[in-house]
């Protein structure tokens, strides 16, 4: 397993306020790492530095061995507030990333069709975002990122603004898409390394291979937990697993300790 993302002594400050300090972290190819921490602890800032949207004050972040300085086409991001263009139809929103990546039009078409199908939005191709529910809008956001077939997928609390039921449906969907990709014999690309920001303990256990628990500001790594629940998973199967309760309690304790 090669290390896809390496974070070395990453430090970020806004003025005199330190957001995170001396973070060290590495994420392997095909692995899902959930970053769990209280609101405002700098998780989102960390994710943005991994994509080169925000620069570090010291330390460095390597993707595929090269330091990140600006966004690249092999890294894709899914946003908490979906980030869809209201004036683009579903197909145009999904095509956005692959078009900018410079794929030829036939390939763009093929990807758009395939990934709209993958997220279950067939029949909604001509809709505008305002005609879709929040869950469906985030499916568009997911398809837009996945259609780049990225090596790294950065998820910024993608399900945080959805209601509980929709959230669970999309978590299952993500697990399904992800696991199907990994067991695909047709020579399709292996699943990307995924960094998933969340403040939901359950979500981090359901989706993550590892969970990085951060402290509040300035964020440092409290602990890295390995989620030893086998795949393929569903949210229900994870919750029913005996390890789930232990992991959840452990996370709870870590999050509460630093709050006190």
């Amino acid at each position, binding site marked *: 397993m090669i290390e896809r993302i390496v974070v070395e002594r990453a430090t970020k400050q806004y003025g005199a306020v330190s957001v995170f300090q001396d973070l060290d972290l590495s994420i392997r190819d095909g692995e899902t790492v959930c970053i769990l921490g209280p609101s405002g602890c700098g998780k989102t800032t960390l994710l943005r530095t991994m*994509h080169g*949207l925000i620069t570090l004050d010291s330390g460095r972040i390597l993707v595929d061995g090269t330091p990140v300085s*600006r*966004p*690249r*086409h092999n890294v*894709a*991001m899914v*946003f908490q*507030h979906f*980030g869809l*263009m*209201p*004036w*683009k139809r579903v197909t145009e929103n999904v095509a*956005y*990333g692959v078009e*900018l*990546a410079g794929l030829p039009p036939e390939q763009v078409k093929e990807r758009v069709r395939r990934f709209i199908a993958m997220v279950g939005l067939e029949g909604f191709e001509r809709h*505008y*975002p*305002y*005609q879709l529910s929040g869950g469906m809008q985030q499916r568009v956001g997911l398809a*837009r990122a996945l259609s780049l077939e990225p090596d790294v997928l950065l998820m910024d609390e993608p399900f945080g603004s959805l209601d509980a039921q929709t959230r669970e449906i999309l978590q299952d969907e993500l697990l399904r898409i992800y696991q199907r990709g990994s067991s695909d014999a047709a020579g399709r690309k292996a699943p990307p390394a995924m960094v998933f920001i969340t403040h939901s303990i359950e979500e981090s256990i359901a989706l993550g291979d590892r969970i990085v628990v951060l402290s509040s500001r300035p964020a440092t790594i409290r602990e890295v937990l390995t989620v030893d629940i086998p795949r393929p998973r569903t949210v229900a199967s994870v919750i029913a697993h005996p390890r789930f309760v232990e992991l959840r309690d452990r996370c709870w304790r870590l999050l509460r300790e630093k709050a006190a």
Partner: protein
Amino acid sequence: MSIREAQAQVVTAAKRRSLFKARPGDWTVRIGSIAVFFLIWEFLAPGWNPLIIRPPTAIAKAFVELVESGELQTALVISMRSFVAGLAIAIVIGVFLGVATGRWRFAYNAFDPLVSAFYSVPSVALIPLIGFIFKFQGDAPRVAAVALFCVFPVLINTQQGVRNVDRGLLEVARAFNTSERRLWTDVILPSSLPYMLAGIRLAIGRGLIGMIVAEFFIGLVGLGYLIIQYGNVFRIDRMFVPVIVVAALGIVFMGLVQWIESRVAPWLRREQ
């Protein structure tokens, strides 16, 4: 800046209007209220001095006379020529300067004081100056007057639109590695389009004022001159004809912009 705030309020007011969803009975009430207005006018008019107020039927008769003599058509063509040309010039200049000042600090600092100064001067006060500049000849001075009246709402609204681009979407564009050209076509221009159209709607109202005033003072042609001409000889019935035509023009042009908006910006229907 209070001018800016007023402009922004107009933009939000335009959006709020769609709070009232169209219902089948709407047009019955709208047309009915106009009909009632004309009926009251018709019945009250004979009690007034006919040199001041004439009933709608007399105006309708005058309308037919002016159409038969061809006066109205000639005036309308001349007025529309300067109005459309002036509005088009104002849209080009307004959008261009609005985009430039909304996006680049240098352009903003360079143009904003001038824009504020010119906008603070009542445009009417500049009409004689425009006459002198263009030597009172041809369509040019009237076109310039319309453009002057129209340019500021377009410019200021476009500027606001460009500045109000959702920062979240700018970040999305950056995250997907956008080019500068695609940033404009995908994000900045579509998101400022409703502001531009609101500016153009405001400009239409102002532009018609500019057109009429210029015809009063510079051209002595067109609908404005018809008003003056028949007002001077106390033909109130005929004087009202161009007034009503101008009102109708305003409604038609505003409706046209609204129609364009629904065609080019269908996503705006989501506003409540």
